């Protein structure tokens, strides 16, 4: 992003016509392949949208054409749009490239059936072409037919010959469903297209079909079959002329540079139809949940916000997948395409295994300690789950606290979240170490609040030779801070410590099995007047022995000292209301 001008860069797929000259049996657009906006010139909407986006500092870094079928446009309309895109790239090259995006030639996605009609424009503007075919080719004529049910392969192969003399980038892609899953035939046809046509099959794309609206005709391949496809291609094409394609373009759809691997693709990818409607992409086209608005009726800001919100919502139909939270490649995958996830009612990528295999093949590092990645992801895309995935603070140059705790059995009890339960009136809080939990839990109490503490009854036996000399150790700190020591470090002011020996705790009746119980509100009450009136105060619990062990460990170990520089014990923060605290005054002044 250009910080100074606050530009946002988007990928814009323009559909200048919904009309199509073919009637592929599995077309995702079904009955929508007809042009109903006869009175609007195809260029007008694109020009209007680009100008409107520009005024809002939203810059398309790529404008590609998609259908319908773009070659059904008249020569004039097609030529005008291509000329416009070509000039757009020329005029904005510096802005786009200086923000890290590459500029190519005008690009079209086509079925190649009527491409001969536009060959002059294609030549003149060096139009880059991406054609769709079915592999094995013998299935092409079965599925990809004209509206009169005529075969199309021969004409398409003839059209490909027309491209031979052009220097333009020309490629094809094929979608693999179960019905296409004849790997030997696919290999044979890839070789044929590479050797016998002008297509450079190093620049070919595999896509994996998903059967959301293929009229029940086609079925998706399993994750194991996806792997089989990749492995068979690897086995066949390694050390051949097509090795480059295998390593790069063929499976790029599953790589991190592709739209399906964005955290929120609604920030960057848009499909614009001639009538001004904006959708997420071709997958979401004509789908209500992926409709972002209309460029003639909505502001770019509204469209961008709707896009982000709808994609967020799509990713949140189901909770964040636990497997993804453990995956070392989450940083590349981001859980996959929201449209497909919603279609399959799943919360992980439908090509998960294939992606993992490809990441290994491409040499991506594993994000071994992925907790930060997970948190970054959920804090953007599954905000509901930030508490669950809040990471411990990490250090870069030495062992983390959790590792040190794991290595020292005696430290465990200082940090255990099952040792203390605080019952405030009727509500119970399991207390955990403030260092480990990261998040802050704050409650409200007043002088009359009933507060009971439950202590696991074997806790006083831990790290202690003479448990009868051991005690529950409570520390009360004010929310107000003081400076102390030569270094003038700021910390919360200690108000009191209080110890209750094991022999006393044993005599109290407890209503919780395995725990001692002690009422502490009468103890705390004596100190309420010393507490902060503005900031949450802090109450810590441990035992005398554990506290001693903590400070001994600190004295002898620099890393532990650094990692537990603040009090590590189980705690709760609270506001005191009543008397003359600011909180209460603030409430009264409402």
């Amino acid at each position, binding site marked *: 992003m250009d910080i100074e001008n606050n530009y946002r860069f988007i990928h814009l797929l323009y559909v200048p016509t919904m009309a199509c000259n073919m009637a592929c049996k599995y077309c995702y657009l079904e009955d929508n392949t007809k042009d109903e906006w006869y009175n609007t010139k195809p260029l007008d909407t694109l020009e209007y949208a680009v100008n409107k986006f520009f005024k809002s500092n939203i810059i398309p870094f790529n404008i590609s054409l998609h259908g319908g079928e773009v070659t059904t446009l008249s020569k004039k309309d097609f030529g005008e749009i291509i000329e416009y895109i070509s000039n757009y790239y020329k005029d904005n090259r510096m802005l786009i490239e200086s923000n890290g995006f590459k500029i190519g030639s005008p690009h079209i996605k086509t079925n190649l059936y009527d491409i001969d009609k536009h060959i002059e424009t294609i030549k003149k503007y060096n139009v880059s072409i991406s054609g769709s075919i079915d592999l094995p080719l013998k299935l092409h004529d079965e599925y990809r037919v004209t509206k009169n049910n005529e075969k199309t392969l021969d004409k398409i192969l003839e059209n490909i010959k027309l491209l031979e003399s052009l220097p333009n980038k020309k490629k094809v892609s094929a979608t693999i469903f179960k019905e296409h899953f004849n790997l030997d035939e696919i290999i044979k046809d890839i070789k044929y297209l590479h050797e016998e046509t002008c297509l450079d099959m190093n620049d070919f794309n595999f896509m994996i079909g998903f059967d959301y609206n293929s009229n029940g005709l086609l079925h998706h391949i399993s994750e194991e079959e996806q792997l089989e496809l990749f492995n068979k291609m690897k086995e066949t094409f390694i050390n051949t002329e097509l090795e480059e394609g295998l390593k790069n373009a063929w499976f790029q759809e599953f790589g991190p540079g592709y*739209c399906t691997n964005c955290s929120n693709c609604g920030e960057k990818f848009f499909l614009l139809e001639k009538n001004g409607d904006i959708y997420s992409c071709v997958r979401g086209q004509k789908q209500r949940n992926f409709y972002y608005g209309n460029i003639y009726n909505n502001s770019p800001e509204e469209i961008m916000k709707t896009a982000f919100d709808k994609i967020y919502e799509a990713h949140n139909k189901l909770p964040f997948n636990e497997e993804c939270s453990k995956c070392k490649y989450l940083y590349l995958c981001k859980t996959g395409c929201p449209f497909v996830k919603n279609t399959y009612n799943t919360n992980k990528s439908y090509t998960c295994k294939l992606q993992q295999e490809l990441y290994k093949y491409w040499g991506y590092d594993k994000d071994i300690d992925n907790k930060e990645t997970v948190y970054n992801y959920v804090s953007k895309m599954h905000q509901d789950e930030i508490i669950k995935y809040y990471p411990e603070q990490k250090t870069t140059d030495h062992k983390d606290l959790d590792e040190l705790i794991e290595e020292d059995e005696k430290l465990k009890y200082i940090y255990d979240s099952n040792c203390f339960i605080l019952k405030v009136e009727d509500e119970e809080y399991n207390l955990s170490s403030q260092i480990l939990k990261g*998040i802050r839990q704050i409650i409200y109490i007043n002088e009359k609040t009933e507060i009971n503490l439950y202590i696991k009854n074997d806790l006083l036996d831990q790290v202690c030779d003479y448990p009868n000399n051991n005690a529950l150790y409570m520390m009360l700190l004010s929310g107000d801070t003081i400076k102390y020591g030569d270094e003038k470090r700021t910390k919360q002011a200690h108000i009191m410590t209080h110890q209750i020996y094991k022999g006393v705790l044993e005599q109290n009746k407890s209503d919780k099995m395995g725990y001692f119980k002690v009422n502490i509100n009468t103890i705390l009450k004596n100190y309420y007047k010393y507490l902060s009136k503005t900031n949450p105060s802090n109450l810590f619990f441990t035992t005398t022995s554990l506290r001693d062990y903590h400070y001994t460990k600190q004295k002898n170990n620099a890393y532990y000292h650094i990692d537990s520089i603040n009090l590590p014990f189980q705690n709760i923060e609270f506001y005191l209301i009543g008397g003359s605290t600011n909180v209460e005054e603030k409430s009264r002044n*409402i």
Partner: protein
Amino acid sequence: MLKKNPETYNEIKTVSNILKITEHYHVSEEFLDEAYDFIVENDKNSIKCLKTIIHFVGADGTNVKTFTVDNVFGGIDGMVITKSSLTIVPHYTPYTYSSGSGGSSSNNNNNNNNNNNNNH
């Protein structure tokens, strides 16, 4: 500001919690009133305030109502409010992005011009 004038200890607790929202988010007076009413309606109701959204979460854990907001004052990644307690999620500062595997990977430039539908 809130229409509710707190008198009892419980009301003060709840109002204090609701007012915490204003420390981190731009919200309307109507929103605060609605939030207060929602929280007192059921002891198990809660309000989750996150980076870009605020959820009213019902007793059964489902989101009853969602608002999109700007976490304008920063400093936190979120907070959860119940009738009697407040949980604050401090802003997490990453310790590293230095390695090749640290989570800010792809720029998603998608210059490969292959933004196709699978069934086309």
